[in-house]
């Protein structure tokens, strides 16, 4: 039995309690989503709601946080299982379902922050539009322009009120070439890192970068 206090030692005194109370939605459990979820779980977010309809395939392993043994499993269940392997105290709500305008409220209505981690641009557009219509006061963090390798300096966070887009806003997928692990991971972790910061802004009294 893992001791809760021991597990959550050396945490930020102000930010961590805020993260523990937070609920973050992750739409998509692929390249972006599997990394966003893992990092947020390690950082100490209290609850993650993750939705994806897909199963793990061999070609996913070039960038997604799954194993050979998990091929054929639902991504949301494989991801929940992987996270349970290093954090026994987080609440994970996996939904094996395609996100549609009709189920966004039921799936993610209780989230403090939404993270768009889809592959397809039409799904990205659908979620971002619907979220901004339904929850104009709640942040949504998307990704656009993640393909290729290198070009670290081209990646940034583009802010439009409560909508944040991480990426270079330009790089298109080339036919037959997946996004590459390094760049996907950078962008996913920028999404996750931004979510932590939005929950516990640095300008709060007594909170700093330490």
């Amino acid at each position: 039995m893992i001791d809760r206090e021991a597990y959550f030692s050396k945490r930020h005194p102000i930010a961590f309690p805020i993260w523990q109370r937070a609920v973050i939605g992750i739409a998509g459990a692929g390249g972006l989503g599997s990394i966003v979820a893992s990092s947020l779980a390690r950082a100490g977010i209290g609850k993650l709601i993750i939705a994806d309809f897909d199963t793990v395939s061999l070609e996913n392993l070039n960038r997604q946080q799954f194993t050979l043994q998990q091929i054929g499993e639902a991504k949301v269940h494989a991801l929940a299982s992987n996270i349970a392997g290093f954090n026994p105290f987080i609440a994970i709500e996996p939904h094996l379902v395609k996100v549609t305008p009709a189920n966004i409220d039921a799936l993610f209505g209780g989230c403090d922050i939404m993270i768009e981690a889809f592959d397809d641009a039409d799904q990205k557009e659908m979620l971002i539009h619907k979220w901004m219509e339904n929850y104009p006061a709640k942040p949504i963090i998307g990704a656009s322009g993640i393909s290729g390798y290198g070009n670290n300096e081209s990646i940034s966070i583009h802010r439009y009120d409560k909508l944040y887009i991480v990426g270079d806003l330009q790089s298109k997928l080339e036919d037959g070439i997946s996004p590459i692990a390094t760049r996907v991971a950078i962008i996913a972790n920028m999404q996750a890192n931004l979510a932590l910061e939005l929950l516990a802004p640095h300008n709060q009294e007594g909170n700093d970068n330490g």
Partner: protein
Amino acid sequence: MIMDRPSFIVNGHKLPWQEGLVVRDALTMMTYTFKMLVIKVNGKLVKKGDYDSTPIPLNAEVEVIHLISGG
């Protein structure tokens, strides 16, 4: 002094403005080809079905965000 011609801004680029312009015209003027977009006019989200009917006011600031596949 010459008066500035009527204009509006798309993603930081100044474009000539005229009465009757709608969001779709701005996309055409910028030769944007991406289909999946988030568009804001003066900070307000334009719904997907409203690109042909949403007018662009004089001096408007239009933000067009391309959503590119990959994840």
